[in-house]
């Protein structure tokens, strides 16, 4: 792991104290925790909007804050992008002017992408000359992301960026974040309450609570670590998967290839060959030890159990369907009754209507 960010931050607010020490690697790091756990304070300290009482923050071995050496770089010198939940677009500027704001302030040699690439990536062509006041929530968030990217940051902070968005936009933004993280090699810190988003996006997570780190590791720990169990909404956990559209199967159904598997879905509007994102609730997946015969569900996927994550209830079964992992939620009793173990071969039964498209258009 190449070290991207080193943090050792202490900040007190009345009774509350943020005291966090962490080494954050490359890729997308999720910060997960209940509200008022110090997530936003942490982001503000990294971005330079709040000063820690004591500590050290280095970004790619550049010290941006050090109480000992009296270093405190101003926000504009840190090259840290920040995408807020409510987009925070400049209301007096058009979409283009919003995008250009940081772009023009970035020296040419630092720019990772030109403006046209960003507009194209986030599909902003149609709205580029519009004022930002009449945009929908999803459009606003796409512009906010584009505006941050246009300033070519070294690190991107995302504070619940999908919290107020509808499903299709969530899918689109998740897809683009993944694309940018890999394609542009841009490190991100992603704050969210949503386990689904964390599993879909984050390479690793840090769980914080009352200003302290509780646990850190691979994002799947959110499904099996007892220390997070009491504030995770397991019932709503969904698999967010990205695939390539094969095209329509009949009038009402389409198919999409995810990993090596073809999945029947409700009708997708994206054309053949296009990327699309779908979500499947973990509780909508039925696990069978034997191949089911004469069953109405359209998707029967052969899989191997890669891990069993026991929380209090349900138990999450990670199933390798060939190239990607699909997580099913079963009651603890079902797992016992079926005698499921890691590396068992199972069949996952998913109705086409349980696959929710998260397409933008």
């Amino acid at each position, binding site marked *: 792991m190449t070290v991207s960010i080193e943090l050792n931050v202490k900040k007190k607010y009345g009774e509350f104290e943020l005291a966090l020490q962490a080494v954050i690697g490359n890729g997308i790091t999720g910060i997960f925790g209940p509200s008022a756990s110090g997530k936003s304070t942490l982001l503000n300290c990294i971005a330079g909007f709040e000063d820690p009482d004591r500590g050290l923050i280095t970004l790619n071995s550049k010290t941006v804050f050090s109480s000992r050496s009296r270093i405190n770089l101003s926000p504009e010198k840190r090259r840290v992008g920040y995408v807020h939940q409510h987009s925070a677009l400049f209301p007096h500027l058009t979409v283009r002017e919003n995008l250009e704001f940081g772009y023009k302030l970035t020296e040419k040699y630092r720019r990772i992408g030109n403006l046209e690439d960003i507009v194209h990536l986030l599909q902003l062509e149609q709205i580029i000359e519009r004022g930002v006041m009449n945009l929908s929530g999803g459009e606003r968030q796409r512009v906010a992301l584009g*505006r941050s990217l246009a300033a070519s940051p070294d690190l991107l902070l995302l504070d619940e960026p999908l919290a107020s968005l509808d499903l299709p936009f969530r899918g689109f933004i998740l897809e683009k974040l993944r694309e940018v993280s890999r394609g542009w090699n841009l490190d991100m810190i992603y704050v969210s309450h949503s386990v689904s988003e964390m599993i879909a996006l984050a390479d690793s997570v840090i769980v914080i609570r009352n200003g302290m780190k509780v646990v850190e590791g691979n994002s799947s720990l959110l499904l099996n670590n007892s220390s997070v169990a009491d504030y995770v909404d397991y019932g709503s956990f969904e698999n967010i998967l990205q695939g390539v559209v094969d095209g329509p199967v009949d009038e009402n159904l389409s198919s999409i290839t995810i990993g090596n598997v073809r999945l029947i879905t409700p009708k997708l509007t994206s054309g053949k060959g296009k990327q699309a994102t779908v979500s499947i609730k973990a509780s909508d997946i039925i696990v069978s030890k034997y191949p089911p015969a004469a069953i109405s569900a359209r998707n029967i996927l052969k899989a191997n159990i890669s891990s069993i994550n026991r929380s209090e209830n349900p138990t999450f079964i990670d199933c390798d369907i060939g190239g990607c992992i699909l997580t099913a939620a079963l009651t603890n009793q079902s797992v016992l009754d079926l005698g499921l173990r890691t590396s068992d071969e199972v069949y996952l039964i998913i109705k086409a209507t349980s696959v929710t498209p998260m397409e933008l258009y």
Partner: protein
Amino acid sequence: MFDLILLSLQVAVIATLINIPIAIYVGWLIGRKNIKGKLILETLISLPLALPPVVTGYFLLIMVGREAPIGQLSRFIFGADIVFTWVASAIAASVVSFPLMVRAIIVAMQGVDTTLERSARSLGAGPLRTFFKITMPLCYNGLVAGVLLGFVRAIGEFGATIVVAGNIPGRTQTIPLAIYSKVQLGKDSEALNLILISTLMAIMTLIVHHWLIIRGTKKGAG
């Protein structure tokens, strides 16, 4: 008559121009910053609004009078007195109109979402650029309202002016003072002409205000 209008405009415009940068700075200090003694500063700048203008005029007279430090400084530098000149009129108009301008600006500054300023900083803009490119444009309506409110107050100033600048025709007599004199002397028709001019100027200022607001709000909603 023409000289009278010109002098009135000169006094009001100069008073307003002096006030704008100070009002923006003070508006920013009070509306945007957590400074100590905010309450004292707020009370102090609003005082001319609460005091009878004649009292404000008296205070000014104490400060800029011939024997006062500022008056002596003026004589030392410029070789001339401030009191009973158009400069004194401008100072009086400036002090009396300042609270109106600054209060509108404070409210506007307080209305600016800090997240927007923070976003600008994250995008690479320093504090000054953020102030001029984000904070100021977002205060535009309040700024325009404050400046024009200050201007109309300055052009109508009477009480403080008559104390510190007197009512000298051709030197310190502005439209309101002239109206007062004409009415006192029973020259009602001449007073009426001036009243008409005053009203026209007020209407024009309000039209300019509306035009500036409309022009300013067009962009973001396009």
